[in-house]
């Protein structure tokens, strides 16, 4: 046998072992078009919207979605006017987006009205079952799924309780709410809580930032001794202004947004937001990979945060009771 034959036989022996590797055909990735229907532009950098937006983008990146590479995003904002949600949704649908992420009840409802085929991922909605946006949480059906802002509506009463706990002498509580939206049974939950806590509620609706000064003047005039701010994207747009006005009016206030507390509000109670927005990526990914939105359960937040601004309490001359401070997740000194 010649040397070449020896080499050949060895090669043959190894060749049998080395199975041919499947060659993975590289296809250019499909570029998805995601529509985002929000309430406010994510500015400035410290705003709630910016934080949430960052968490949303981060959640997408965790799942391999890079803007400009495999998806592009079309953003539309109602900018404090719920009635604009409908035409903006139509714009998104005309852009042939693959799915719509909608923030806020009005936005989700508008999207659901406009399309029953494009998947809608909701976020920041309180009790979507009661508001008729999904059939139930485990199996939403239809084209809407996503994440809720709270667990049920009880938290509306819970805030009143926390306010009462912080300032036990409170008896007249002013409720600041967005009058251009739907109440969806919030009032009854709050009224029930008010009865249990023996306080009276006075309602002050606003639908335009111009009306805030008037509303606070009315609250002061009505001698309310505390303020309960109703969660709504419109309210969420101006936490600083409302907190400043409350402080100016020397009102102990409870907010549904931590940003208001950071800006000088007395206390806030809400579900931890970044976790929710990061989780949006899960829905976007599942749906873009073919999952039926109606088959994806709606998730509710698990972690709620109580945040108290002691500086404000001091300014208002209040002493926050110890049990409450124990329960507080964050205390601003």
């Amino acid at each position, binding site marked *: 046998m010649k040397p070449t034959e020896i080499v050949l036989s060895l090669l*043959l022996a190894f060749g049998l072992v080395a199975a041919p590797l499947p060659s993975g055909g590289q296809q250019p990735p499909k570029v998805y078009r995601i529509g985002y229907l929000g309430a406010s532009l994510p500015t400035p950098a410290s705003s709630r919207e910016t934080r949430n937006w960052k968490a949303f983008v981060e959640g997408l990146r965790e799942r391999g979605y890079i803007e400009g590479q495999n998806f592009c995003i079309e953003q539309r904002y109602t900018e404090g006017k719920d009635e604009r949600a409908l035409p903006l949704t139509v714009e998104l649908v005309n852009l042939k987006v693959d799915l719509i992420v909608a923030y806020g009840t009005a936005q989700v409802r508008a999207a659901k009205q406009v399309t029953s085929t494009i998947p809608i991922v909701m976020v920041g909605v309180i009790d979507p079952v009661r508001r008729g946006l999904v059939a139930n949480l485990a199996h939403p059906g239809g084209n809407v799924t996503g994440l809720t802002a709270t667990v049920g509506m009880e938290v509306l009463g819970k805030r009143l309780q926390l306010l009462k706990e912080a300032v036990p002498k409170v008896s007249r509580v002013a409720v600041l709410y967005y009058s251009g939206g739907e109440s969806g049974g919030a009032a009854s939950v709050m009224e029930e809580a008010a009865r249990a806590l023996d306080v009276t509620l006075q309602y002050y609706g606003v639908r335009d930032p111009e009306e805030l000064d008037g509303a606070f003047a009315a609250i002061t005039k009505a001698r309310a001794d505390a303020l309960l701010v109703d969660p709504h994207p419109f309210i969420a747009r101006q936490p600083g202004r409302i907190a400043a006005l409350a402080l100016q009016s020397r009102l102990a206030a409870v907010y549904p947004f931590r940003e208001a507390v950071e800006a000088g509000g007395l206390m806030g109670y809400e579900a931890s937001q970044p976790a929710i927005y990061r989780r949006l990526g899960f829905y976007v990914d599942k749906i873009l990979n073919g999952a039926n939105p109606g*088959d994806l359960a709606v998730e*509710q937040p698990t972690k709620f945060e109580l945040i108290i601004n002691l500086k404000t309490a001091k300014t208002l001359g209040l002493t926050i009771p110890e049990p409450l401070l124990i329960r507080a997740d964050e205390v601003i000194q």
Partner: protein
Amino acid sequence: VKPRSHLVRKYAVFFAALVSGALLVSGLVDLYFSYRDNKAALLRLQREKAEGAASRIDQFIRTIEDQIGWMTQALSRRQGTSLERRSFDYLLRQAPSITEASYLNGAGREQIRISRLGMDVLGSQVDYSTEPKFLEAKSGKTFFGPVYFREESEPYMTIAMSGKGQDAGVTVAEVNLKFIRDVVSQIKVGKAGYAYVVDSRGNLIAHPDMNLVLKKTSLASLPQVRDAMTGSPKPGDARDQATIARNLQGRQVLTANAAILPLGWLVFVEEPLAEAFAPLYSPMIRTGILLLVGLGVSIMASVLLARKMVNPIQALQARAARIGAGALDERIEIRTGDELEALADQFNSMAGQLRDSYAALERKVEALRNSERRLADIINFLPDATFVIDREGRVLAWNQAMEEMTGLKADEILGKGNYEYAIPFYGERRPLLADLVLKPDQTHESRYTFTARHQDTLVAESIAPSLRGAVHLWGKARLLRDSEGAVVGAIESIRDTTERKQTEHALRESEQKYRNIIEHAVEGIFQATADGRYLSVNPAFARMCGFSSPEEMIGEITDIARQLYVDPEDRARIKRLYDDPGFAKGFEAQFRRKDGGLIWVSITARSVRDESSALLCYEGTIQDITERKKAELEVQTHREQLRLLASELSVTEERERRRLATDLHDSIGQTLAMCKLKLDELRSQASSDVLAHDCDHISTLLDRAIQGTRSLTFDLSPPVLYELGLEAALESLVERMQQVHGIPIKLSDHGGPKPLSEDTAALCFRAVQELLVNVVKHAHARKIEVSTGRDRGRIRITVTDDGIGFDTSESTSRKGGKGGFGLFNIKERLQHLGGSLKVDSKPGQGTRITLLAPLQHRPIRKG
């Protein structure tokens, strides 16, 4: 002889099969057992992972239980809402999974309930004393309620614990099981594997994909879950540790489970089968590679061993083959000491015997070969293509010329028969001359263009179409006989005659071409001898001379000079030209035709001489120029007539001039003279000065008129010419010219009477007058000389000047000047009168013109 199968291959296959077979069997057995062991280990491992996962989830629940326990113990010792409240706040801070906690007093009535989401309730006193959570906790055990789903989505479980003592209350906590996800997702099962938890009904309560839990997914339908649920979960269960099953997505997984005892939950771990079994495959692949390498090595070793065994046999075979091929001196050297060596020795002695007998044979053959070679050399050397066949028609010899002709090498054709050697010639198998001389065959012989047979020899010509185009061949074949005279074969030589044939053909063609030219030429062409006979003439010549054919002409003409030439001297003249310069060009002569008619011919011919300059013949062309001659004569005649006419005209003109001049002189001149005389008379008698003055004036005018009349008379026809002769007229002319133009003109006369007719005198006078005018006008001469004299019965007049001269070739042919004669006219008219004019001139050297005219013996008429 090449063996059909090699010993090496046989041995190699046998050894390889033996060794490889053993290797293969041991390898496969090894593979099987290692697979089994590894798989068992894997399954055990999977089971252990499940156990580990179960214990971690158990730990999670225990932690919550402990936290509740601590708080309950603390509460049972003290009473009071504020304290309870604070404890609960702590509990909720410590255990994020507890959404709600309540405290029931010893009677089962709710004292406090605090919640993360809902309103805290104090002292509601709701009675829970009959509920299992109260009863079971009161019995001393921790109560773990069944899993329930809030809002049909979030899994919850109630945990209740009682404090120590009869009146101790019960703490009830609602635990959000979503938090187990944090535990479950931290359990790593390989890369893609994970753990999940189902409750006793098969509902999913924890899974890395939270959404599956929230969807309230039931896994009871999966066989592995069903199996696990039906089997009683006891510790140390000896059931199969892990199974291969399909998971919820239908993928093949390796799954194992473990129970969390107090809760009745099952923890499953699963891992994709491919991944789980990957550690199984790598040793298998390793073993496989080693096996193959082993096989390769064993095959190589087998081949090497077989070769070592077979090598001496192959050597023996190779040497034997070489002996068989004639290498008898080869010795087989095998020193194996066995039968093979004996065999080799036998071969060697056999080869020795063979070598001896072979040597004897070789000597005889050598002698024979030498004589054959000599013969072959001879044949080969022959310039003609030659081959030899035996009686059966097989080729015995084929020489080099034959090879060149046919392109067929000798070694390709030698020994071949069946007319194969005919193929290069005719493209088919057919007898050649050599065959025909052996075996006469009329049909084949008739195919040759020419055959000739003489005893044993046959000669023929033919065309071989297959030899590079049609080739003309000439062949000669002869029988070969042995010493007894018996026919043993035939030899044939072939010669290529194509070239000769072509040369002959070309020659014929060129002859024909020249003949055609001669036959059809328009000019006459001839060859003639010096003694006056034609060797050949062409038809054109014969026709020219009135003969019907060249043959007739050659036959009839025996003396060219007398029979053809009108003037036999012409023939003698042209013959002189043939001698020197050796040719005649355009020689014109008059011939007499056969019918007696005359023709003019132009002959261009030369003498043909051999190498020693001996005359062979004359040859050349001849042209009928009769028509041209006729035309020339006519032109001549016309010209004469013209000259005559011109002369007549001139004479007439001269006479007319003379008449006019005479009239002028005789009548007007005389009348004017009379007038002058009368006026002079009148002047002398004039009484007044005025009249005298007028008379003087008229007298002057009359003088002028008389002078004009004289001058006019002279110009028209100088009376002196007719009255006193040419010399006097010339004198008068020269005088007048000198007066008018101021150029010195010398007139000289060389004596002797020069009687001239009136016309000639007038012409001469006019000619001189014209010439002088020309000289004065154009020659810029300083000096002119006119001389007259006699020259052999003619008068000669020369006019010489020292002017600019001119080119003679132009002037004589040019028409004369305006209103004058012009040299040409003078010349023409002089010639008509039998005289001539000669011009000698060169540019820059002056001119001399000489006129000659015939004298007349009759004296010039006076009057």
